[in-house]
C-alpha cells in the first residue's frame, strides 16, 4: 500500500495503514497508534524511523507536513508567554508544543514548581515577569481548562526577556542561572534562567539530555 514517491518525500502514510508489528525492537512514536500488536498510522504524513541508541529500539513515527491537531501531553516541553505573576502562581499562555505552534492554551505555574531546590523560599516575582517567554514542561492533567507546568529543571525557565525600561526587542542576556542583564542599559534583573541547549527543539534529545543530567550532579545548582 505504501507509495514510494520521488525520493525527497519518503514514504507516505495514511491513517489506518498498518506499518509493522509492534515488538521489543519497534515501538510506535508520535503520529501512530498501537492496536493488537501492530503499529498503525494515525496521521497522513511521511514515515520516519529513528534508532534509539540507549534502549536499542526503533521508534516508528509519522510526521505530518501540517501541524498536527494535538494538545500538550504530560512531559511535553512547551513555549509559553507569562501573563500574570502573583505571589503564589504564574499564569501563562502556551504558544508552542515542542516545535508546533498551537492554538493558545492556558497554563499555570505554581510557586513550588518553579525551581527544584529551596522550594520554600521561591519568590515568583524574582523569577518571572509578565511578557517573558519561558520554556516549561507539562505536568499531569489535574484541572479541566488549564495545564499545570513546571520549570524545575536547569534547561527550563526564561528564554527571552526584556528588562524594565528597555526598548522592545532588546533582549536580556543571561549572566548566571538566576540573573539576566540588558546589553543596552546594563540593568540586571533576577530571573529563573533556562540553560538553552543548542538543538533544543529536538524533543527526544532534550529528554535524554535532561535525564542524563539528573543522574549526574547538577552543575549550576547551588547546594
Amino acid at each position, binding site marked *: 500500500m505504501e507509495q514510494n514517491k520521488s525520493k525527497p518525500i519518503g514514504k507516505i502514510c495514511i491513517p*489506518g495503514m498498518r506499518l509493522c508489528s509492534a515488538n521489543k525492537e519497534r515501538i510506535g512514536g508520535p503520529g501512530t497508534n498501537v492496536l493488537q500488536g501492530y503499529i498503525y498510522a494515525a496521521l497522513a504524513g511521511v514515515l520516519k524511523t529513528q534508532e534509539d541508541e540507549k534502549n536499542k529500539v526503533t521508534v516508528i513515527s509519522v510526521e505530518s507536513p501540517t501541524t498536527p491537531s494535538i494538545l500538550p501531553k504530560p512531559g511535553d516541553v512547551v513555549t509559553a508567554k507569562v501573563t500574570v505573576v502573583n505571589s503564589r502562581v504564574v499564569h501563562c499562555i502556551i504558544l508552542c508544543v515542542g516545535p508546533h505552534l498551537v*492554538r493558545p492554551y492556558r497554563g499555570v505555574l505554581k510557586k513550588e514548581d518553579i525551581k527544584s531546590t529551596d522550594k520554600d523560599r521561591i519568590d515568583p516575582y524574582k523569577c518571572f515577569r509578565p511578557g517573558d517567554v519561558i520554556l516549561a514542561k507539562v505536568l499531569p492533567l489535574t484541572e479541566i481548562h488549564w495545564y499545570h507546568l513546571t520549570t524545575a529543571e536547569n534547561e527550563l525557565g526564561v528564554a527571552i526577556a526584556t528588562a524594565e525600561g528597555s526598548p522592545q526587542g532588546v533582549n536580556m542576556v543571561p549572566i548566571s542561572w538566576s540573573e539576566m542583564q540588558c546589553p543596552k542599559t546594563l540593568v540586571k534583573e533576577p530571573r529563573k534562567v533556562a540553560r538553552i541547549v543548542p538543538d533544543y527543539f529536538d524533543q527526544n534529545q532534550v529528554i535524554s539530555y535532561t535525564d542524563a543530567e539528573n543522574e549526574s550532579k547538577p552543575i549550576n545548582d547551588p547546594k
Partner: protein
Amino acid sequence: MPLDYRRFNGPDDSVSYKRFTPDFLKSYEELLGDLLEKNNLKDEQASDEAQRVFAETDTISQAKGSAYVEIKNTKVVCSVFDPREIPHQNEFSHLGQIYCEVKFAPFSCSSQRRPPAPDAEDKALSEALRQAIEPAVCRHLFPNYQIDVFAYIIENDGSCLAAAINAAGLALTDAAVPMYDLITASSMAILDDKMFVVPNEEEEELAMKSQESKDINHGVITLSMLSELSQITSFIQIGSLETDCVIKAMDILEKECKELVPNIQKVVVRNVIKNVKRQQILHESAKEMEEILDEKYNLWQKSLKAKSYLCFSLSFFSLLA
C-alpha cells in the same frame, strides 16, 4: 420555532411553486415509472458509483482542515478546527469530545427553502455524523477538549449524510487529527426488489414515501465504516425492510465503502505531497534567509573588529605620545 429576527424571514405561509406543477400531482406509480425509465437510460452509460465521487482537501484556508465532497449532485463543504475548551463543562473527562454541526444551505433542497435556524432534521444529521466519526478519532489524545466539525450542505441531491461523513473524514485527516482509520460512507435506497446505491434525491424520496400497496420493502440505509479495521461506525436505516433485505444491503454497502477507500486515499496522498512540497519550499527559503543574515552578521562583526582594532591602536598610539 423561534424566528430569527436578524434575518429577512420571508412571508410565513409561502409555499413552493412546484406544488402547482403537473409533476407534483403525479401519483406514486407514475413517479416510480418515470424513475425506472430514467434509470434504464442511465444504466446504459456505465455507472460506477465510486467513480462519481469528487473530493478535495484544504479548500478553506481559515480552518485547520477542510474538505469538499461531491457525490452526484450533492455538494458538501466540511471544516475542522483545533481542539478548544468545552464550554460549560465542569466534569473531568479523559476522552475528548467531538462537536458536529450539519447545516443545509437555505437553497439546497429542490422542494422547499430550508429555514436558517437548525430544525429537527439538522439536529438528527449532526448526531448521526458525530456517531459516525467518533470511533475513528483517537479521542484520548485531547482530554477535556473538543474538536469542532462543521458540515455545510450546499446542494442536496440525496445521500447527503454519506457525503457529509466522507467530507468530515477527509477534513479530519487534513487537520492532522490523529485517527484510527480512514472513514468512508455510502448509502442506498431500497424500493421493493430494486436497490439504488448512492441514490439521488428522487430515488431517496420515493423510497421513503408512503406506499399504496402494502408490504413491500422500502427504505434508506446509510452505512459508514473503517475499512482497514473492518468496523462499522454507524448504520442508520429508515423505512420498512425485511431482515434478509437489510443484510443483503449491508453487504453491498460494505463493498461500496471499500471501493471508495482508494479514491479517498488518493486525495489524502495528493494532499500530503502538496503539503510536503510546501514545507520544503518554506524550509529552503528560510535557509536562504538565514544564509543572508549570517553573511551580514559576519560582515558586521568583521567591521566591528576592525573598528575596535583601530580604536585600540589609536588609544595605544595616543598613550605612546
